[in-house]
Structure formats: C-alpha cells, structure tokens
C-alpha cells in the first residue's frame, strides 16, 4: 500500500520543483504548467477525497493554481516540499469552499434531488468510486468532519509522512497522530453501522471519541 507519490520523488525532482516555484515567483507562468503536470493528478486525488463531486474537486485544483499565480508565493524549501505546499493551498481552498457552502440552503426540487441522491448515495452515478463497496466507503468518508477527512486522505490515502502532513495542516505531529486516531475510529464506527465491516472479535477503537 505504501506507494505514495512523495516517496517516489528523487532529489532532482525536489530541486526541479523548487526551481519551478522560483521561476513562478519571478513571473514565469510556464512554471505553473510544469507544476500542474507533476502534481495536478495527486492534487486532484486529494481534492476528490475531500469534495463530494468531481466538478467541485477540479474547481478546487483550478483555484489552487489560480492562487499560485495571483497571490504572493511564500514558499520556503526549508519548511517542506512543493507538493506539501500545494496541498496546503488546496486545503485552504477546500475549507473555504465548505464554509461558503454553509451559507446556502439546497432547494428541494425533484429532479436535482434525485440526481444529487444518486451521487451522494454512491450508486452507479458516482464518478469516483468504481464499486458499490467503495462508493459506500466514500460516502462514509464524506460524512466525517473536514479535519478528520483530510487527515485520513493525506495519511492513509496519499501515504504522506506525519511530518509532511503536520506541515500541510500547520499543526504539531502529535496532533496529526491523535487526529488520525480519532478519524480512523469514527470511520470504523461509521462503516460498521453501514455493515461494511464486522467489529465482532476485534477490539473496538473507542478511545479518544467524544
């Protein structure tokens, strides 16, 4: 399972990434395309794990690169990798997206609700999950609070190191570990309630849950 993107990066790639960021800060927009070609897919994976729809996930990735061009780049190679920095920018966009969504109330129209239900329920219309089981798993993931969802996406799905995740989330490594423990426990309980797993005979991870 440990086939994460970051572990395959060589030192040259890291140097290239830093060079791209430096060129981007100098106003060379072609560096943005190189960054997109290297990290766009991984960013889209992370975004898809966080957002409900494929369209929203792609919008978040697009906004991340817009922010790279428009806003002042404060990347410091000593504080982490470029991919970690990009994940941090994307995470802020996702967080803002969900805050913005809270202001709106979805209209209960018959056509839209049926379509949305098809996507939310993880049925055949799900654009990301390919089987019914992973669709149900994805639904359980999306029901987690944002801070738990992101720590599972980064640690368990993207398989980033705790140090890298701590840099992305801007918190201590210990916080990442404890938050990951709670997130896994919540996910386990949720999956058990959906009858996707059987908790009998396995110690239940109740510690740390409130």
């Amino acid at each position, binding site marked *: 399972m440990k086939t994460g993107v970051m572990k395959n990066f060589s030192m040259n790639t890291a140097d290239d990434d830093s060079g791209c960021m430096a060129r981007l800060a100098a106003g060379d927009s072609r560096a943005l395309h190189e960054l997109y070609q290297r990290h766009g897919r991984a960013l889209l994976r992370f975004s*898809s794990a966080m957002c409900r729809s494929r369209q929203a996930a792609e919008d978040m990735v697009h906004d991340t690169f817009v922010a790279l061009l428009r806003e002042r780049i404060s990347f410091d190679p000593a504080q982490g990798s470029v991919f970690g920095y990009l994940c941090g920018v994307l995470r802020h966009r996702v967080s803002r997206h969900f805050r913005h969504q809270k202001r709106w109330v979805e209209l209960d129209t018959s056509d839209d609700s049926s379509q949305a239900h098809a996507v939310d329920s993880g049925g055949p219309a799900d654009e990301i999950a390919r089987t019914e089981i992973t669709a149900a798993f994805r639904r359980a993931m999306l029901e987690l609070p944002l801070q738990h969802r992101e720590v599972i996406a980064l640690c368990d799905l993207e398989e980033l190191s705790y140090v890298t995740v701590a840099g992305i989330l801007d918190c201590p490594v210990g916080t990442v*570990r404890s938050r990951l423990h709670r997130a896994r426990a919540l996910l386990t309980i949720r*999956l058990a309630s959906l009858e996707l797993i059987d908790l009998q005979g396995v110690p239940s991870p109740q510690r740390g849950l409130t």
Partner: protein
Amino acid sequence: MNDELDSRGPHPHIAPLLRQYARDLAQITPSSDLDARIGALVAAGRDNSLPGPRTSTRGFLPYAVAAGLGTLAIGIGIFIGMKLEQSRDFLAAHPAPAHESAWSSADLTMWPSDSVSFQIPAEFSAQGKLVAVDPNSKNTSTRYWIDVVVSNDGTFRIERVVPADSKQADSIQQGHDHVAPKIQ
C-alpha cells in the same frame, strides 16, 4: 501516547477498504476541461491578464465597487472642506479694507445718530457781517451767540443766533440738552 496511537494503524477491517478506495482515486485523471483551464491560466499569466478566482470574485466585486465609490465620496468631501477652510482662513488673514467700500457709513445713515452743538461768540464787523470773535475780548458792539450743531453724518447747521445778554434765559426756557462746549 502518540506512538501508541501511531502503531495501531487503521482498523484491520478498514485497511482493505482504504486500499481499494485509494486504487479508485488513483484512477482519476484530470479532465480535458481542467487541462484547458490550466492552459488558459498559463496563457493569461503570460499575457499578464489573469482571470479572477472562480469562487469568490463575482460576489466580491459589488462590495469592491461600493467601497471604491464610498472612498471617492469621502475624498471629495474632504477636498471641499479643505477648500472652504482655506478660503475662511484667507478672509480672516486679509480682511477687506474700509476705504474700499463704495459709500461711507455716514452716507448710508438716514438719520444722524449723534450730534454736538457749539456756541460761537460773534459780533457785527464794520462791513456789516457777523464774524466770530474771541470770547475773552471786550465787546466793541453787541455780541451774539451763534448756536451751531454738527452731526456725525457731516451736516452742519446754525440753530439760532441770539444776543449774548438774553442767551442764558432763552436756553433755560427752550430746555436744550445739548452738550455746549464753549469755544475758547
């Protein structure tokens, strides 16, 4: 405690689900639409004409316009106030001189507000004219008192001419309240 939490790992039953979900996510590739949007972004960055962020610019624009108009109105108000204050200071520093007025205040006064009367001693000269004389000199002919009233509007008039002998009695009878300094 953190190490303990760390060593547990995901629940053994959810680990396969996590792997399966990670595999599904790994199948995701950016759509051609996203590729095109990033390409347009790079081109716009090259031309220095970047599009705004997709999410919040449209909502932010009216507020930015309103804030700009408000700032402009405040600036205009401050500018007008400064100009008024400057003109007030200028008038205070350079008051209009009195001689520049077209009419003197005496000309504009319809009625004299104050006046003063004089008593001038006079005698008939050899030519038969009434001329002022020194009041301390001896009378060479019949002496008269000429009552003259000068008003503050510049007018001058002779009230009366009375013989010096009857002056005292006449003044008391007519009840004059004028200040009557005598010309020495």
